[in-house]
């Protein structure tokens, strides 16, 4: 060891009493400072929050969910149920419920514990532990049944306040999240020995390979393996060389800190890469996280196995952890998890941990092996090392408050009889309960799991249709380093061939390593205490015990899916990684069945908790949804327009002048249009060019109107129905040529109308020679409306005679304006003389400003959608979606005149003939005048004959549009009223919530200029 490192070493040794002097994958020369619950600690680069706290002897990292029992770190990985913490950089960068075992330490990291008040050491909620008898399984369902009135005011608020672990931050999240789609032939999830060799094999085929792993370093179990030899080299050296070899392949993408969280149909796999969470000062150019959406031809799951805890009384005290976690803390992080250890072993991993701990100087008080006759390399090595081994031993209980201080070890007979309890002092109690293959993703793919009696575990079964995956190594039930390396390579090679690659040379990985061991114990361990009083925890995070599960079985919850929900076992944020198999074991015991008879619960994404930011990706703020603006938008903005959203478009709603509210602005705009001239941006209207020799025939079929005889250069108001006969869209249609129509649609309907037309064309009438092209954005549309419209427009137009005789109402012509092409419509949605000037968007602003400048002579007034709505309502013109609601026929809204009576057919025609559609009592469009001549009605308000009638009232209809009419000097409204046209002159009542009703008179819906004289203003 170089002398220059010596000072740092001594610092670490002094400040971190449980740090080993050497070894591990940490860098003792890079000290880091961090805080936990406000107290400052030291750690080193390479630590996790959990390992750094353990270096200080801190095991207590959280309080349990229900009983608020003190809890310590139990695992060293993503299966951690207890050590959940909140890590904060600032108010918006606060992440709750992170596993301390996965939080990489950085300088200045600030973490706090959860589910405690006021502090981790003294927690008021801990009183729950004393009332545990009152909180049995399913207490949620039993306790809060009565009185009913208590639910809203007492039970729910109290439950909500006491439930949950970390707190959700309320400040906006300032971090960025991105997504990336990726394609590969072979995706390998898990970079332990099996994943590494799988990637090696696939890489050699030349195909694209992605290898990801949730940990900060690739290597899996090899990161904590200090004893095995692979190909004649220490495992650590082999790992370094293998990663270097993989890095030389340009076809291989290596993704550490990347969790495969979801497996979706057709080998679509979601990965989340934590890009900056481990950095002290993240670069704001980098996303915090990146969701990879991978479409893989073949997937290899090398996800390893989770160690099983043992279910013995008080198995949840701080200082009680999984055996393999202890091995990892010692070997990988250079941390001793205690001074004096008892190891409860049902599997050789207990011996491996004992040897690693002993090597690091931890006293091994006893290895208490549940098995009567253990054997094998681990056992032999422990004996050789002179460790105290007792066989046929169970754990009858533990002691200690904030930390385990002793274990009661008892002998257990073949018959389960327990005697001879002996208390042994310890500050560390390890559980070696055997292994559970990690098959979350395998199960998520809907592939089957099957029970393997030999290893007492579920292993991969039949692969789901539409998926292509295989498991390797411990995930496949092949335990041990030898099997991991060989099954991994084989799986990678097979996946490559299945994905179309060439076969690869076989490689043999000769190892010297511990023998594989599949021994396990599932279910509650035998003990000689009162089974109704002791708690042996099954789900540590949700605080459910063997006793709870047995109670659930007694109460009739036989199905594991029912018992799971009743007791909440396996339903915490860890999704039962450590609790599922013990739960099955206890349920099998309680029902006298085997585990495969019990079945298993469904695995669902995500594998570990995944941020919402990942799913949102870039879709926030301005990129949440496209914001569409017209060519006139910035001009309108400059004029102080107030905009409204219409679909994705921003439309100018009104143009307030100094001191004006909307009503004043709209009244002024309305007057200007009726008296002189208004200018309006109608660019957002949908436009579809219908072209081909069968264009008129197609129009005849799609619209209710007749089109055959519409002359070239003429327009018609068209109405389109759905097949059910209800109005779907409307708009003016101009005939540009015999075989060319310029169709306009509503702003919001543009895309769906085109889709519906295309749908009919492709599926019903493929033989028609007609084609549809969206022209919405080919043309910007300037509406010039008012008596002075022609006078202002004329000087700019070339090639079109605008005289009333040559260019009457509903005419269309192509020509030029301000030197650019125009399609000029003479149409009016206001009732005034009007033109809609279609021009290329690139020239629209110029044309608009030219017209505006000329129009200043006549006080030209820009107006918005609100004024447009008032003006059209004065004329009784409907707006689809306002007067219609998807249940209005053409006749309901007064459009029977538009139907081409002679046409054989059109979309919706047959439906219009059904009796219900011709019922004279249907709701019909009428006008409403408030009898008091003052009240502007509420849109949507209900209309009744007698407001004093008992409820529920007979409702005759509702108000669809309501405005103050500047032109008429009184309010006007449109409404749909039952048999409305036969009620002209009647007085009805419009209900005003909380204020009684307003009397209204039913009148014609055309309020202004019924004769249409204004259309031809000279």
């Amino acid at each position, binding site marked *: 060891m170089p002398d220059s490192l010596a000072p740092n070493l001594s610092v670490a040794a002094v400040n971190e009493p449980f740090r080993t002097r050497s070894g591990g994958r940490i860098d003792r020369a890079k000290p880091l400072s961090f805080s936990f619950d406000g107290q400052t600690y030291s750690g080193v680069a390479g630590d996790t929050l959990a390992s750094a706290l353990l270096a200080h002897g801190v095991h207590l990292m959280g309080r349990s969910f229900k009983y608020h029992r003190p809890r310590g770190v139990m695992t060293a990985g993503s299966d951690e149920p207890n050590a959940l913490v909140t890590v904060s950089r600032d108010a918006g960068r606060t992440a709750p419920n992170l596993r301390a075992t996965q939080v990489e330490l950085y300088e200045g990291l600030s973490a706090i514990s959860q589910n405690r008040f006021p502090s981790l050491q003294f927690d008021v909620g801990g009183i729950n532990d004393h009332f545990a008898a009152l909180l049995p399984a399913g207490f949620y369902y039993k306790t809060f049944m009565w009185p009913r009135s208590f639910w809203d005011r007492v039970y729910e608020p109290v439950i909500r306040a006491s439930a949950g672990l970390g707190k959700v931050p309320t400040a906006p999240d300032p971090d*960025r999240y*991105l*997504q*990336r*789609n*990726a*394609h590969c032939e072979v995706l390998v999830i898990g970079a332990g020995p099996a994943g590494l060799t799988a990637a090696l094999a696939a890489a050699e085929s030349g195909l*694209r390979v992605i290898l990801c792993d949730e940990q900060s370093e690739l290597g899996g179990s090899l990161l904590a393996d200090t004893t095995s030899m692979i190909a004649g080299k220490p495992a650590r050296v082999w790992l370094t060389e293998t990663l270097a070899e993989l890095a030389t392949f340009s076809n291989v993408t290596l993704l550490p800190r990347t969790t495969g969280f979801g497996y979706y149909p057709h080998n679509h796999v979601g990965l989340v890469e934590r890009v900056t969470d481990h950095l002290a000062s993240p670069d704001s*150019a*980098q*996303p915090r996280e990146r969701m990879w*959406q991978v*479409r893989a031809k073949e997937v290899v799951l090398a996800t390893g196995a989770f160690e099983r805890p043992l279910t013995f009384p008080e198995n949840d005290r701080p200082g009680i952890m999984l055996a393999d976690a202890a091995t990892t803390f010692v070997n990988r992080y250079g941390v001793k998890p205690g001074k004096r250890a008892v190891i409860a072993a049902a599997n050789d991993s207990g011996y491996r941990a004992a040897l690693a701990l002993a090597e690091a100087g931890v006293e091994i008080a006893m290895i208490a092996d549940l098995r009567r006759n253990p054997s094998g390399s681990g056992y032999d090595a422990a004996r050789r090392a002179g460790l105290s081994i007792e066989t046929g031993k169970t754990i009858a209980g533990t002691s200690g408050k904030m930390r385990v201080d002793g274990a009661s070890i008892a002998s257990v007979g073949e018959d389960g009889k327990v005697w001879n309890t002996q208390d042994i002092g310890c500050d560390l109690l390890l559980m070696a309960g055997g292994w559970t293959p990690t098959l979350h993703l395998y199960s998520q793919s809907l592939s089957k799991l099957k029970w393997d009696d030999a290893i007492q575990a579920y292993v991969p079964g039949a692969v789901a249709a539409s998926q292509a995956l295989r498991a390797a190594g411990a995930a496949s039930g092949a335990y041990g380093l030898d099997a991991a390396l060989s099954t991994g390579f084989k799986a990678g090679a097979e996946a490559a061939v299945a994905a179309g690659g060439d076969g690869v040379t076989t490689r043999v990985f000769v190892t010297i390593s511990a023998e594989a061991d599949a021994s396990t114990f599932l279910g509650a361990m035998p003990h000689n205490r009162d089974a109704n009083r002791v708690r042996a925890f099954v789900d540590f995070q949700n605080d459910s015990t063997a006793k709870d599960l047995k109670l659930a079985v007694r109460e009739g919850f036989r199905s594991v899916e029912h018992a799971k929900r009743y007791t909440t076992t396996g339903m915490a944020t860890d999704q039962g990684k450590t609790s599922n198999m013990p739960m099955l074991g206890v349920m099998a015991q309680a029902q006298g069945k085997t585990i495969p008879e019990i079945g298993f619960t469904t695995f669902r994404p995500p594998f570990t908790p995944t941020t919402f930011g990942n799913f949102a990706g*870039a*879709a926030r703020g*301005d*990129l949440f*949804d*496209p*914001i*569409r*603006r*017209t*060519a006139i*938008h*910035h001009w309108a903005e400059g004029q102080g327009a107030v905009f409204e959203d219409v679909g*994705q*478009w921003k439309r100018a709603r009104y143009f307030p002048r100094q001191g004006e509210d909307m009503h004043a602005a709209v009244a002024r705009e309305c007057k200007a249009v009726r008296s002189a001239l208004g200018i309006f941006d109608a660019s957002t209207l949908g436009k579809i*060019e219908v*072209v*081909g*020799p*069968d264009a008129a025939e197609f129009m005849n079929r799609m619209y209710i109107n007749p089109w055959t005889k519409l002359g070239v250069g003429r327009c018609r108001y068209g109405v389109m129905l759905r097949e059910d006969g209800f109005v779907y869209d409307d708009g003016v249609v101009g005939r540009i040529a015999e075989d060319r129509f310029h169709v306009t649609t509503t702003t919001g309907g543009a895309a769906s109308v085109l889709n519906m037309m295309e749908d009919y064309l492709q599926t019903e009438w493929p033989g028609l*020679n*007609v*084609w549809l*092209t*969206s*022209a*919405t*954005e*080919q*043309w910007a549309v300037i509406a010039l409306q008012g008596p002075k419209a022609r006078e202002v427009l004329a000087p700019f137009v070339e090639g079109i005679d605008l005289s009333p005789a040559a260019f009457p109402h509903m005419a269309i012509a192509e020509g030029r304006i301000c030197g650019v092409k125009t399609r000029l419509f003479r149409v009016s949605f206001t009732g005034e003389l009007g033109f809609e000037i279609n021009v*290329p*968007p*690139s020239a*629209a*602003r110029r044309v608009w400003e030219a017209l505006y400048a000329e129009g200043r002579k006549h006080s030209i007034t820009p107006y918005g959608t609100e004024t447009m709505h008032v003006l059209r309502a004065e004329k009784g013109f409907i707006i689809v979606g306002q007067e219609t609601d998807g249940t209005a026929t053409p006749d309901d809204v007064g459009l029977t005149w538009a139907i081409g009576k002679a046409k054989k057919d059109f979309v919706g025609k047959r439906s219009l003939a059904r009796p219900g559609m011709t019922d004279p009592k249907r709701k019909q469009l009428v006008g409403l005048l408030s009898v008091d001549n003052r009240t502007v009605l509420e849109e949507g308000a209900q209309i009744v004959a007698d407001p004093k009638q008992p409820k529920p009232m007979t409702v005759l209809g509702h108000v669809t549009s309501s405005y103050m009419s500047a032109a008429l000097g009184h309010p006007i409204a449109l409404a749909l009223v039952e048999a409305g046209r036969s009620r002209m002159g009647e007085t009805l009542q419009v209900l005003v919530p909380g204020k009684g009703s307003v009397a209204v008179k039913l009148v014609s819906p055309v309020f202004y200029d019924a004769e249409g004289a204004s259309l031809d203003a000279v």
Partner: protein
Amino acid sequence: MLSDIVETTAIDADGVRLETLPAFGRLNFRGRAGAVAAMSEAFGLALPEASCRAAIAGSRAALWLGPDEWLLLMLPTETDAVIAAAASALAGLPHSLVDISERQYALGLSGRLAATVLAGGNPLDFDLSTFPVGMCTRTIMGKAELAIWRTEPDRFHIEVWRSFAPYIRGFLREHMREFGA
């Protein structure tokens, strides 16, 4: 002007550049076999029959967008002449030819990371073996439609509708930020 609705300055990052391409004349051509041959003649370029493939000749290009649909690109000054030539060449042959020069505009995305940036909002496989030079397709970017045409191994021609251009530009820029944009 384009700048009325969208910034047109190029965005540069390490390994990828997003720029606004010059104006094009654009025609949407629809028609059946006979008309396709006549249109090819009039356009001076055989419209590609293979799906999702583009053909180029001189200043003109034809992009296959559907079994009976092509996007024809040309210089803006050529558009009227092409329309006139088509009118006589296609007389009597059922077809549709619509000027959409102003409906959309073109972005260029280039550089070794161009495909990576596209992958931020599009699920297609942009590997050269599956999306070769000359391939074009209508597809999506985030929540907007566009057409993507690979003109060189590291260069894409993107067609977007005018009003979606700010969104597409912003979306691509967001995915270029980590590379220094």
